């Protein structure tokens, strides 16, 4: 860090830059804010100076007519326009850079829900609540969606922010520069504990991260780091593990087999994203919404060939339990399918040039 810039950063209370994006926008930030301060102070001071210098000297004093010259008019329009457009061009370039994740970025799925952040690493990778582990100096792309209302994923140290919207995916990416712990905040108002929807990004050295990922994949569930955050339910093990516990405790597996055999209810194996034909002949995709709905209101959409015998679990399943169950069902895949990374989103880096 060079001296004056660091001083300016401290004066402006900006956190230390923690990603490759941060210095880019910080430079523009300094430029814009300095010009803003100079311009507004000049205007203010000029007004006060005129106030005293040209104060009324005698009653009904006559005043000259001041007329703008062409040069003045050009300056009045040209100077602001020049600065504004300059900032726009610079800002838009950075923004396009920020919205174009590199091809080699590592993907992490992010799910926001009232009032916690969930992270999963795709495939058979670990899941985590509240804490996102990433390697330093490697690009990471976040594919984000929400379970309930709009949230917004904000890491002040990285200068990144992206709304997280139910029913669709949004993406953002970053490349952390230093190992450390950085706070995640939700910035889109989402209800009572919006102000507590915090999380943490843990940036590790790349080798350390690889080691961590390996450990996570190799079982030893007890040592997994699913920290629940301050307010999250205290899980031990991954969310899938937890879902399994819930399934056992609630007696789901008495009717739903896990091995593909139809029983009283449809099997859970490969159920996720399967196209089911309902009694009335219509079809439905067994996505998160359908699965969750079926726990709450099981008789609304009965799969063809099954009897409407399942009781409602409304009030008997807490929201995190239902979510864990869905995650558990999602994890039940036949080996052939398992090789395919779970892709809920259309997986395609966005290059502006590809669009019209």
């Amino acid at each position, binding site marked *: 860090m060079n001296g004056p810039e660091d001083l300016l950063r401290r004066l402006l209370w900006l956190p230390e830059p923690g990603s490759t994006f941060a210095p880019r926008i910080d430079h523009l930030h300094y430029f814009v804010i300095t010009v803003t301060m100079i311009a507004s102070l000049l205007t203010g001071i*000029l007004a006060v100076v005129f*106030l005293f210098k040209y104060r009324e000297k005698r009653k009904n004093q006559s*005043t000259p007519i001041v007329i703008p010259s062409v040069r*003045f008019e050009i300056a009045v329009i040209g100077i602001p326009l020049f600065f*504004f457009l300059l900032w726009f061009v610079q800002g838009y370039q950075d923004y396009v850079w920020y919205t174009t994740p590199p091809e080699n970025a590592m993907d992490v799925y992010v799910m926001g829900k009232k009032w916690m952040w969930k992270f999963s690493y795709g495939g058979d990778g670990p899941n985590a609540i509240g804490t996102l582990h990433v390697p330093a100096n490697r690009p990471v792309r976040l594919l984000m969606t929400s379970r309930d209302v709009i949230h917004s994923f904000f890491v002040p140290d990285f200068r990144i922010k992206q709304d997280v*919207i*139910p029913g669709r995916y949004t993406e953002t990416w970053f490349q952390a520069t230093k190992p450390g712990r950085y706070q995640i905040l939700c*910035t889109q*108002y989402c209800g009572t504990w919006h102000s507590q929807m915090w999380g943490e990004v843990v940036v590790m050295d790349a080798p350390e991260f690889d080691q961590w990922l390996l450990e996570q994949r190799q079982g030893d569930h007890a040592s997994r780091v699913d920290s629940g955050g301050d307010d999250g339910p205290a899980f031990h093990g991954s969310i899938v593990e937890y879902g399994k516990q819930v399934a056992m405790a609630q007696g789901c597996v008495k009717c739903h087999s896990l091995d593909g055999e139809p029983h009283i209810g449809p099997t859970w194996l490969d159920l996720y994203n399967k196209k089911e034909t309902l009694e009335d002949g219509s079809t439905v995709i067994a996505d998160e919404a359908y699965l969750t709905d079926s726990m709450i209101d099981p008789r609304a959409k009965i799969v063809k060939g099954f009897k409407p015998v399942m009781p409602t679990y409304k009030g008997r399943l807490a929201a995190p339990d239902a979510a864990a169950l869905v995650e558990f069902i999602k994890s039940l895949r036949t080996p052939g399918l398992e090789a395919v990374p779970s892709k809920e989103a259309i997986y395609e880096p966005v290059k502006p040039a590809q669009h019209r």
Partner: protein
Amino acid sequence: MSQSSQLSTDSPSPPAVNYLNADRGVWSWLTTIDHKRIGVMYLVSVLIAFLLGGIFAMALRLELLTPGPTIMGANTYNRMFTLHGVVMIFLFMIPAIPGVFGNFMLPLMLGAKDVAFPKLNLLSLYLYWTGATLALAGMIMGGTDTGWTLYAPYSTTTPTTVFPIVLGIFILGFSSILTGLNFIVTIHTLRAPGMGWMRLQLFVWGIYATSIIQVLATPVIGLTVMLVGIEKVGHFGFFDPSRGGDPVLFQHFFWFYSHPAVYIMVLPSMAVVSDAISAYTRKNIFGYKAIAYSSLGIAFVGFFAWGHHMFVSGQSVYDNGAFAVVSMLVGVFTAIKVFNWVATLYKGAIVISAPMIYICGFLFFVVFGGMTGIAVATVSLDVHWHDTYFVIAHFHFIMVGAVIMAFLIALHYWFPKMFGKMYHEGWAMVSAALIVLGFNATFIPQFLMGNAGMPRRYYIYPERFQSLNVASTAGASLLAFGFVIILIYLIYALVRGQPATDNPWGSRGYEWMTTSPPPKHNFHEPVVITQDSHSYQEPGEEVEHVVI
């Protein structure tokens, strides 16, 4: 200061019969179709709304003194910031200047006896009261916690009472439309003989531009809030993602109104300053046409800029770019106005008075607030600042720094005309200084908070933001103190103030041609305009011309 003492010497006795005492009794006020009385009733109503919103604001600032819970629970806090926003925006800001001073002054400035549709004008006031009552009923029924932005799907799924408040906003929208419609028609049809378009006072131009936005943008918010209400009650799925609805579409709808709505608030403020600055400097306004046309320019371009509220909402990258460029144009129009105001001060004969202190403050706030607006419209910077306190500070610089300053300028400038009494200039200057200082102390720390990353609408916040929050709360107390002083000396002036002359400021505004307070039908004799507005030369007087 010097003004009021001078004036007492040559003050004639105020007219015996004026609009205030021509008819007596509460009923004569409630059924009046006199634009001046309607303006006064608006003044009382918006001041009550301002008081209410101000109390909410102070409660919020007190809550934020400490990082954890301080004086209220999370749910109370969430309801309170929603109500602060709804009350301040829909009940105070939007009707404030057009409703009060537009109603009162516009016909006077045109040399007309009333607005074009006086009954419609009264209806608009009643609709305002109905909407306000509904919104207040919503608060009493438990309030809503969606924020004034009412973002779906939160607003359609929250357990709180949304419906009365959205219905209230819908009805307030109607009130706003009728006011705007009335003003446009009035300006087109009721100009006195000799009053060409280029002789309109700049306040009239500002109100004209505002009215266009009111008429054309407000129906969209009406539809939007009704869709939210229907969705909340009837589950129609219009904005509900689980039924295929698009919550981002809600944001498009919402900001299509709510961005131009910012100009519904700001344009009248700029209009007030354009008028007052000319009066207090005893000088022709610099660049009349530029100021008039830039108002229309802002009104027009303001319709194309709504998407800059959605840079991180998942909106298309291209749309973001387009909306960003358009937002820069609004900045240019504002810059033109600012240059013109400062140039008007140059070589003037400035009366140092409370309104001039507000005007100096206003100039600083508009430039700083406006340019931080340009900063947040710079797409990449907005990624960091969006929904943080930086944005809060930015729009309070415009909403409080510009709109409330202008409201106070207007209140002081036109107080003698409206009520026929003079206020105490010394106390006015003290409170003006307090307010300008208190304002800076409140909101400059919030810019820094935003830089540090404190999100808006946070009940609990990380401890590192506490010092800035304490500073901001301290500033807010100063601000509140200033407002209390104003309230006291204005009430004192109403009761015991010196009688005002017809034109205590020596202004050349047409509204000063009648008595203070004006008679029931505005003018004693038919008005013929023979002079350009804002012209401080006597006919035939030779004055110096300066080119800059």
